């Protein structure tokens, strides 16, 4: 086998190797910018499913809303907090369910939330447990803690484990009720 032929074959092999990588890059491109036909209806369909699913609508909506808006606002606001003079959160504003949106509750050293009449904030909703969670203020920071509820307490879309800190603008979800820290 002559040396020239081997060299030519070697160069062909390297070309084939890089052809493979070109194809991979093209695959990456279609992954990042998927073809229109398949991609456009997907978010609409996902939204439609979540809103139509009766009971889970509140949660699904809340979680999608949180995923996009609340997280962005959280990081922006907390960044603002660190630089400017700190604004101490004073109240909770009800965001969901829409029927009761706008209701305000003053934050205190110790609040309990739930359906039971003895709670400091009584939330008579289907997905709220009798004594669902507690929200308390320590050194100017707000903490939320789940009290063994069925559907959990969530801060900005992640489930509260132990005492979960919540900053100004964060959203605390109790069953299907969403409260914003103001």
């Amino acid at each position, binding site marked *: 086998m002559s040396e020239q032929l*081997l060299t030519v074959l070697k160069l062909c092999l390297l070309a084939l190797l890089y052809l493979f990588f070109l194809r991979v890059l093209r695959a990456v491109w279609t992954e990042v910018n998927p073809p229109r036909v398949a991609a456009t209806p997907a978010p609409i369909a996902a939204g439609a499913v979540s809103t*139509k699913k009766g009971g889970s609508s509140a949660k699904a909506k809340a979680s999608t809303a949180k995923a996009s808006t609340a997280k962005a606002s959280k990081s922006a606001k907390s960044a603002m907090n660190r630089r400017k003079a700190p604004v101490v959160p004073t109240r909770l504003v009800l965001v969901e369910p829409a029927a009761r949106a706008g209701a305000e509750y003053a934050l205190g050293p110790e609040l309990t939330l739930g359906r039971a009449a003895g709670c400091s904030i009584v939330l008579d909703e289907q997905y709220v447990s009798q004594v669902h969670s507690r929200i308390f203020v320590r050194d100017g920071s707000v903490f939320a803690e789940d009290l063994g509820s069925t559907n959990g307490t969530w801060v900005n879309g*992640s489930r509260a484990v132990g005492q979960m800190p919540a900053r100004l603008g964060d959203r605390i979800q109790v069953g299907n009720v969403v409260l914003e820290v103001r």
Partner: protein
Amino acid sequence: MTITESTTHQQVVVKALGRRRRTTELGLLILAVLVICGTYALASLGKSASLPADIVPFLGVIVALPILAHLANRKFAPTSDPLFLPLAALLNGLGYVFIARLDGDLAGLQALWTAVGIFGYIATLILVRDVRFLQRYRYTFGLIGVLLLIMPLLPGIGRSINGSRIWVSLGPIGFQPGELAKIALAIFFAGYLVDRRELLGVATFRIGRINTPDPKYFAPILVAVGFSLIVMVFEKDLGSALLFFVLFIVMLWVATGRGSYLVVGVVLFSASSYAAWRMFSHVQTRVTIWINPWSDPSGKGFQVIQGAYALAWGGTTGTGPGLGIAGRIPADESDFIFAVIGEELGLLGATAVLCAFLLLAGSGLRVAQRSSDPFSSLLAVGLTTLIAFQAFIIIAGVIRLLPLTGVTLPFVSYGGSSLVANYILLALLIRISDQTARKIPEPLVAR
């Protein structure tokens, strides 16, 4: 639109996506197989001037196994990302060709291990149908990881090879449990940090004038990390210790979004490397060889110098597969396989290997970014860090960017445990990407 209509519509979209991705995967796999077969043919031409006689087992490994994995993807993870498998198959196949060219006996074993790896891959896909299932057993995985790490230190089954006590031999089979321990510990980190990331991101505890997160949230993971690092130092497994430390810092940083953890990590790393350098003679040897390998060119520096010569001899396009001076570098089929590839395929071939790792890492991070479930996302980051950083550590060691620490080049090097562990890791990434594409909603319970 009714519920059924919209659900079926979504199913149609997901199905179309799956079909597109599997077609892409198959196309890329075929191309990868062509590249590997071409390299093999050329290597045997160069080595013995005749076409390979033992082509049947070779074809089995190179063609049948990736196609088997592809079929498993079609069945068990139809909408998963199409890039992982072809890239892994290319790396594995190229590695196999060079191992076969260096040592025929090892090639047979490597073929066997590749088969075991692919079966591990398929078994993982079948067993782990939902990644969140792993989150439930995070502490179990933490324990398993630590136990696997200790195994080589146990008398009777532990073996010390080339100065590192990282081997366990049970009967005729020898393996490195540390490779599997990395995956188990990555699962533990992801599970633990997802629970506590908010708490670790907020400074509520004061030590002097510094605010830090409350130590009671910190302590368990610090104990696990400290213990693992101490075990690895005792086993003289510096590469794994470095990899493990980076994994921990990266996952902590990603989970909390606090850049300060990176700073703390760099400070801790510098302090502990300095301490290790002062305390252990084998660390000093590594550093000396790194700075000046010509201080002992025929002894301790021999391997590094021969690696550098091999890369230089390769030039831009290499000597051609099978035409390099084989068997000159110690551990050329495991730690130094990158130098062999650099010699015989040149700068272009070595760059191709780097590209493959870059694209693997990119795909892994894309999966992590797209996943809406925090645990899956963090786990994907951890697993990607494991592959990418391990490749970085050993390649940097070979080209003298870092002191040489012996870890395998994922998928490429000869090594059964590493190959099996990396295929399992790949299966987990595939599972996460499949789940992300299908988006399974969590049920809400009425009370």
